[in-house]
């Protein structure tokens, strides 16, 4: 303690000497040199015109280490551009503070419809060196409906559907269902044969429950009216198409079906407290027959149980509505955008061109565990048996995208929290549909 106090005193003395022993000046004196130093540094780095510090903001945890590697190689070229990566777990919130404070990074992976509407991203329409290599449907997905411009380049695509235990299905002689009745019959068959297995494992994380809304009730609208008309309906809040609150609508049907499965014990009892890790654990140990998720969960499954590779089945979502069709999510993933007022636009394009090279994109696709959106990249993003299963499922069902046109004040997580309330018994299915409608309209 004495030593510690002495150290403290010593540092205090130093500070007070610097301050010329006039206490009133202590604060400015301790700050001023540091501030001045920082300004000098900034001036020194900005002065030569060719030296550029490019800020890159990402929320993708899977690619941090690979991007560190790629950025190090890029910076080593010494072309006057130095890229710095910033990763944030809570990226979509933090980027809002950055926009609000006018401290926007040059390149970012976060993409929000509200920023598109405000014209915050640089249109990338002229970047034919990228678009010529991209799968046309992915270019389509990157296009903003209202302006017809492309504000981001998506390097990968991702799929979401039902993962199921092939062995278990084969033993019971069942196949993935296309209709809701068939789906429930499958779950019941699994429950009857294996009482300690959860036929459908749902976990309570808000984003996952929000995704279920995008795949089931909103998936119905996206498949029925087609991608473009559905996007227009979402953007203009066309209630004649959406019908969120209608007691016979897709939203109420989804809620009814979910509660019905919960009451029959066909989903796991701890749906509200289970996590995605629990889901993967249950699946690899044979305690869960099927679950809904995207390709991003594959690496976790294979890491826990590499022998599972040949046993992972992948199927589309069955239709819940009488006039619905099975759907599977095929969406753009990992989009890169440039800030419209960035002073370093050329440097940003140069860096992205480097990042998008076929060689880097192969590694990227393998790190991310999803297929590349570039036609000249062939990556082993998953075991061959999984890849073939996924491509069969994609061919067999209507492909839908994410609902990127949600109102700014009503995020996917907000919707997920409403589903938590439904599963906790706060709402009846009809009340849930009305609550969803109210929240959607309020967010609009």
């Amino acid at each position, binding site marked *: 303690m004495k030593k510690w106090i002495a150290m403290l005193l010593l540092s205090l003395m130093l500070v007070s000497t610097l301050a010329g022993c006039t206490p009133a000046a202590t604060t400015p004196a301790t700050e001023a040199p540091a501030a001045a130093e920082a300004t000098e540094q900034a001036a020194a780095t900005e002065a030569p015109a060719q030296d550029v510090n490019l800020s890159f903001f990402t929320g993708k945890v899977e690619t941090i280490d690979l991007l560190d590697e790629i950025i190090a190689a890029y910076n080593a070229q010494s072309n006057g551009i130095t890229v710095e990566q910033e990763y944030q777990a809570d990226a979509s919130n933090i980027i809002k503070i950055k926009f*609000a404070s006018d401290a926007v990074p040059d390149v970012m992976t976060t993409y929000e419809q509200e920023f598109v509407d405000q014209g915050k991203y640089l249109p990338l329409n002229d970047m034919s060196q990228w678009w010529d290599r991209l799968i046309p449907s992915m270019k389509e997905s990157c296009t903003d409906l209202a302006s017809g411009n492309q504000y981001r380049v998506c390097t990968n695509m991702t799929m979401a559907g039902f993962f199921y235990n092939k062995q278990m299905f084969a033993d019971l002689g069942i196949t993935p269902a296309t209709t809701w009745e068939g789906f429930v019959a499958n779950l019941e068959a699994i429950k009857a044969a294996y009482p300690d297995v959860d036929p459908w494992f749902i976990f309570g994380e*808000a984003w996952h429950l929000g995704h279920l809304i995008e795949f089931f009730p909103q998936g119905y609208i996206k498949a029925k009216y087609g991608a473009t008309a559905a996007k227009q309906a979402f953007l203009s809040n066309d209630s004649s198409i959406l019908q969120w609150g209608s007691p016979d609508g897709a939203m109420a049907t989804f809620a009814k079906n979910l509660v019905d499965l919960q009451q029959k014990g066909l989903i796991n009892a701890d749906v509200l*407290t289970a996590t995605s890790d629990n889901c993967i654990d249950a699946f690899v140990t044979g305690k869960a027959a099927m679950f809904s998720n995207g390709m991003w969960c594959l690496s976790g499954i294979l890491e826990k149980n590499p022998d599972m590779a040949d046993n992972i089945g992948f199927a589309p979502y069955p239709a819940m509505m009488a006039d619905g069709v099975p759907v599977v999510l095929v969406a753009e993933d990992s989009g890169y955008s440039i800030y419209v007022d960035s002073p370093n636009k050329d440097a940003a394009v140069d860096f992205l061109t480097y990042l998008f090279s076929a060689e880097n994109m192969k590694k990227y696709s393998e790190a991310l565990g999803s297929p590349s959106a570039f036609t000249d990249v062939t990556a082993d993003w998953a075991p061959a048996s999984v890849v073939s299963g996924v491509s069969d499922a994609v061919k067999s069902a209507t492909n839908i995208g994410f609902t990127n046109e949600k109102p700014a004040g009503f995020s996917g997580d907000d919707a997920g*929290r409403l589903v938590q309330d439904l599963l906790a018994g706060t709402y009846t299915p009809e009340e849930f549909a009305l609550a969803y409608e109210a929240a959607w309209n309020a*967010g609009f």
Partner: protein
Amino acid sequence: MRHKRISWAQFLSLPALMLYGMFFVYPLLRGIGMSVTDWDGMGEATFVGLQNFIDFFHDARAMHDIKTTLIFALGSAVLLNVVGLCYALLMNSDFRGKSIARVVIYLPAIISPLIMGYIWFFLLQPGRGFLHYAFAQLGMTDIIGSWMSSYPSALLVLVLVNVWQFSGMTMIIYLAGLQSIPSEISEAALIDGASNWQRFWRVSVPMLMPAIRINVVTNIIGSLSVFDVIMSLTEGGPGYATESLSIYIMRMCYGSRTGYSTAVAMILFFIILIPVLVSMRFTRQKS
């Protein structure tokens, strides 16, 4: 001479004021202005008068959050003080391993809430958590229920975890207060024939007033602005059931309702201010 010296010595508080003014008050004053606008975090802000405040009182979710916050604060401020004082009374004696016991009780308060959240979730998860398997190995199943999936029980768990984590802190302050009571005073009371209970109320409590004041005031402020414990254990869920006002403010701020969130923060300020003023009045020391 003397007069002159005093007149400038009072300004020794200036460095603190300048630092605080620059990094807290100045941004705050700029921030408060937003409470009467509809600013969404970008672009132009329009003056909307008191509309944000009116909206707040018409929002069912916000009203539920006030209720949750008040229940949480009442439960945890009272329990933290009672439990902390009990710990301090237990520890205020000589026994072997006294200093180790104090460290152990204080330990939960010094660990990052992030780690604490992970650990408690891992412990309490129904059907999968550590305690579930521990009790199962002892032959007791179904002891750990789905407490975090329904409203009143989830709130109770949150209060208890909060008390568990921070009662070491209140204990330390009460212990300091107890140790500052000269032993002659309580011995004199003993000779007068006062019972233990009377001695505690008539002698210890008045002497403990400064410690009570510090603990009550800081725990009221801390419990009414609770954020970390709830975020790491339930994220305000299920749904919005255990959302506190601080979490609501954060979500509104990120949900493109920056102006509104500022107005709610002002309301929270008054919600905290009233009990703090009241408790400061009740614990005022008589000189």
